[in-house]
């Protein structure tokens, strides 16, 4: 069953936060006057919801957009749901479509913002899609990939996982990758690091003239643990400028902790929000004084991301 039949994308607060952070970061790069991203084109897996496409158009004013959908019914629904006239939906496999996108009259030779937002785990086919994009994307493109980080997808037995990851990510994986780093909470961080190392190694290996600058490293979780990784495929002359933007302390897409947003009712969220921003930090006693209670971790996450915390009534309107 395709994932759009099982998940209503709008109901995942961590995902919503992650998505907003991604587009906010891209906006920062676009604001840099030495990097011309004004003609950026968006390529994604819009599914039937097109949430990312909406943000790309509304927040970044990107016009030319491509959505890829391989499911038969999904394709018809996607075509029906395409939110703007400039969204083209292709009924194809990513790997078969990519070569024609590199030659596409509308978007070739323009910077791309590609987001391969897979629901599934990183596997041989996502690896070949990412490799191809690193090799052939136009310069100044941004490449982002999201995949499932559930440990079981990389081997039912923890002891099989290091070998599986070596198989997937190749020679940049240290020989002594431990079973421990492929278990529990560590698995997300491990996967993100290995995927980014893979992308860096690939970009150097294929001799891209600019650098691949790591810019996205966001583990997050609503139900299943997920990982979003990616970077900027700089041109030779934009490398330094992009470095300055991305290495800024408050670049939001490399948080030091996974994004795990608490599930709050609209009433709870707005009550908490009314106390923010707050110099001393939200405490449980503040929450208790509001008439309910939350765990410390939930509070910390809310305080960090409240500006991006979804208010569903708005989105569904």
């Amino acid at each position, binding site marked *: 069953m395709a994932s759009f039949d099982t998940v209503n994308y709008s109901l995942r607060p961590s995902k919503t936060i992650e998505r907003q952070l991604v587009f906010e970061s891209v906006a920062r790069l676009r604001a840099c006057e030495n990097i011309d991203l004004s003609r950026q084109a968006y390529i994604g897996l819009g599914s039937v919801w097109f949430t990312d496409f909406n943000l790309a158009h509304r927040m970044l004013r990107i016009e030319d957009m491509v959505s890829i959908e391989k499911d038969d019914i999904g394709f018809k629904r996607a075509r029906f749901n395409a939110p703007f006239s400039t969204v083209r939906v292709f009924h194809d496999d990513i790997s078969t479509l990519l070569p024609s996108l590199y030659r596409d009259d509308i978007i070739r030779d323009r910077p791309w913002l590609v987001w391969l937002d897979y629901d599934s785990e990183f*596997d*041989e*086919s996502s690896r070949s899609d990412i490799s191809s994009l690193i090799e052939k994307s136009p310069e100044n493109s941004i490449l982002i990939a999201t995949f499932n980080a559930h440990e*079981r*997808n*990389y*081997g*039912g*037995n923890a002891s*099989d*996982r290091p*070998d*599986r990851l070596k*198989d997937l990510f*190749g*020679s*940049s*994986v*240290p*020989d*002594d990758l431990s079973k421990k780093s492929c278990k529990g909470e560590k698995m997300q961080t491990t996967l993100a690091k290995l995927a980014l*190392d893979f992308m*860096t*190694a690939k970009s*150097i*290996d294929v001799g891209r003239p600019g*650098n691949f600058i790591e810019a996205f490293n966001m583990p997050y979780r609503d139900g299943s643990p997920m990982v979003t990784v990616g970077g900027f495929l700089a041109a030779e002359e934009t490398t330094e400028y992009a470095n300055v933007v991305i290495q800024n302390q408050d670049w939001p897409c490399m948080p030091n902790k996974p994004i795990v947003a608490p599930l709050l009712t609209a009433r709870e969220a707005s009550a908490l929000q009314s106390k923010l921003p707050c110099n001393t930090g939200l405490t449980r006693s503040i929450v208790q004084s509001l008439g309910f209670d939350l765990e410390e971790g939930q509070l910390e996450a809310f305080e960090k991301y409240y500006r991006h915390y979804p208010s569903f009534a708005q989105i569904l309107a």
Partner: protein
Amino acid sequence: MDLKDKKVKANPTKNFFVRMITRDIGLDDCILDLIDNAVDSAWAQEGSQPSELSSEIKLESYNIHINTTKDVFSIRDNCGGMSLTDATEYAFSFGRNEDSRTHEYSIGVYGIGMKRAVFKLGSCIRIQSTVVEDDETYSFLVPIDVDDWVSRNDPVWDFDIEEAEDLAEAGLQITVEKLAKGTASSLKNPAFLEDLRRTISRDYSLHIQQGLSIFLNEKHVEGWSLELKSSDVYKPAKVTYDDKEGASIVRVEIIAGMAASPPENPGDSESQSNDGDRKDGWYVACNSRIILAADKSKTSGWGGDSLPRWHYQYAGFIGIVLFYASEPAALPMTTTKRNIDESSEVYRRARVHMNKIAREWIDYTNRRKLDIVEAKSLEKAAKPVNFRDLANDQDSEVKLPPLKSTPKVKQANVLYSVDQKRLKKLANELGDINMTYRDVGIKSFDYTYDDLVGED
């Protein structure tokens, strides 16, 4: 025309020279060259001698630290340093002077390693040495700004030498900044760094077993250990003898045999998700430094006059050949220390022994097809032995069991293709996501057979 007193100019320019010596060597080999220098110094400190496999641990007090960032490469060691005389007279001249001294049993032959390495790495170089001589400690620094040096049109190719503070221990420290473009991108490449770690782990495995510590970006490099299987029916071959290259004696030690069971289905090499035969083949070491690894080419005899080309069927075979000579020029290696000098007669004579052992192995892998069940059970019973422990054994021929054909049940081969994603998911559910495709096929057959047919 008066040609008297006319001469054709043939002086090399520095620029040409720098480009030429750095062109045909890889960055990894350059880094290994610097490690070689440190290793040679360490051996010199210990009194040079051949470090045969069976010899005692000698290098445990020595360490080498290699650090890389996107802007700086550095290597430092506590292996005794370079004396002032060595620096002023030998180490920086290009090519060895006829009267220069080489460390006995060293691996630096041509006096080009360090210069070539630092020039390849970058253009702002600082070489600092601290030495203890006659209970006195002194230090000096040789700074090289390559661009400046190349642009100066001096007929003399000297470098400056300065006083310097003492390093923490007697040793050498080389720092390179203004990295060359290719160097900088490689040092940023996580795959390059992991591969470098693997290469160090393999090529210095004999030194690491002797106690030497090497750190790459402050993480200890674990030595690679080679094991061969042994039991009452399997025994690795061991051959030792002295050979001669000119006036120099070259000691030769060969150990080879079964490291793992050969593959069950040799046609399967494409679909292997494990290491396959990556580590198999011949290893050749010169004064302990491994210069040829896992070789399955004509260099080590495969596909030459005496042996067929390497085939996946032969996987499981590992052999190591060690050459020791007090005069490194007598060793059969090329200047990059990445390959055998096949014109060396010492090497060609060793290859006769190597071929003989390999031939026994080839015959065994053919023979075992006749009674694969028996072969597998015998192989399973053999225990791995570290090759250092084998070094103490007497010379012997390789021992492999004779196997005879048994009456065969008629076999059917099944071949089909499925979606790779689905295969991986099934492998995971069958208990091992890394299972070979073939095993997934067999397991699914057994599972269905058991379900639908039941007992035979």
